[in-house]
């Protein structure tokens, strides 16, 4: 199964995805973050929130493109979801395949370890306060949150560690809260 997913991810990356120059991408994201820091007077908690919101708004749209390109059906458990996120989601949009690890015993929470992070090339955080508080790539958490929410998975997504801060790895933690029910919008029968 996981072999197939990898194959599918590779195929889509090769044939169906529009690609841009990675430096253009990295520098664009960098300017966004730097400008946010400036606009919010280096209030890094607020910057994190803002990035998260931006990501969320990307995520709720991106999931449709993802489903249209992959034609995948519903995952049966979280393990499968994690594999799809890593081997196809990250692959087709960022051309990286994070390692899935650190499952908790209840199988509801896992870590995604980013060996390389295309958002963070060239970046060096400016001061110790930023090193403590700023999650530079927080947009990714928002994207995951948005995507998963649109497929009825209510999750908490956050960074656990970031190599920009001097940590060993860059790890995103995904924790499933509950599976949302398909509900009829209020006011409709």
């Amino acid at each position, binding site marked *: 199964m996981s072999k197939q997913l990898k194959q599918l991810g590779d195929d889509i990356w090769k044939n169906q995805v529009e690609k841009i120059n990675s*430096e253009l991408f990295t*520098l664009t994201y*960098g*300017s966004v*973050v*730097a400008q946010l*820091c400036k606009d919010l007077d280096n209030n890094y908690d607020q910057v994190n929130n803002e990035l998260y919101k931006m990501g969320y708004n990307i995520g709720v749209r991106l999931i449709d493109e993802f489903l249209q390109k992959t034609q995948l059906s519903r995952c049966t458990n979280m393990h499968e979801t994690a594999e799809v996120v890593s081997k196809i989601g990250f692959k087709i949009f960022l051309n990286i395949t994070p390692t899935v690890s650190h499952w908790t015993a209840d199988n509801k929470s896992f870590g995604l370890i980013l060996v390389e992070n295309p958002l963070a*090339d*060239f*970046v*060096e*955080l*400016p001061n110790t306060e*930023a090193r403590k508080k700023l999650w530079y790539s927080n947009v990714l958490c928002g994207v995951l949150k948005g995507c998963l929410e649109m497929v009825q998975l209510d999750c908490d997504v956050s960074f656990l560690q970031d190599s920009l801060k001097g940590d060993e790895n860059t790890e995103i933690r995904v924790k499933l809260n509950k599976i949302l029910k398909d509900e009829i919008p209020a006011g409709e029968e």
Partner: protein
Amino acid sequence: MSYYFAILGTNDAPVYELEIGTYRQSGNGVPHLPNELQELEQFILNSSLDILQDNQFKDTGLFSKNLDSFYGYKILSYLTQGNGKFLIMTDLKNHDESIRQFFIEIHELYVRNLLNPFYEINQPIRSADFDTRVRALAKRYL
């Protein structure tokens, strides 16, 4: 036998400076610039900028190994395409080639630093990482 190395930004404002001794001839990297020279080094480099600017649009190369001299110290320069300037003042002779290599490697570091979104052009380079890398290069080439 010492070096004084400085990076000047596009508006000639100093961005980074380093005094370092040679590692050749059994040196250990400790600079031995006389006191009276230490007080003057910024002036000496800045005064050589005039010559640099005169030559800027005549020479095709980036590197100039005899830009200027000051009482036995000579000044070498490297001008990036973006108008950043790397200058070295030294009393070592016959090390032009390794200094050129040093400049080329510094150029790469300098560009990487410019690409950091938190760095603003012509601001002092305060990154500790940059400093360590420059010192490592100095150890290798100077």
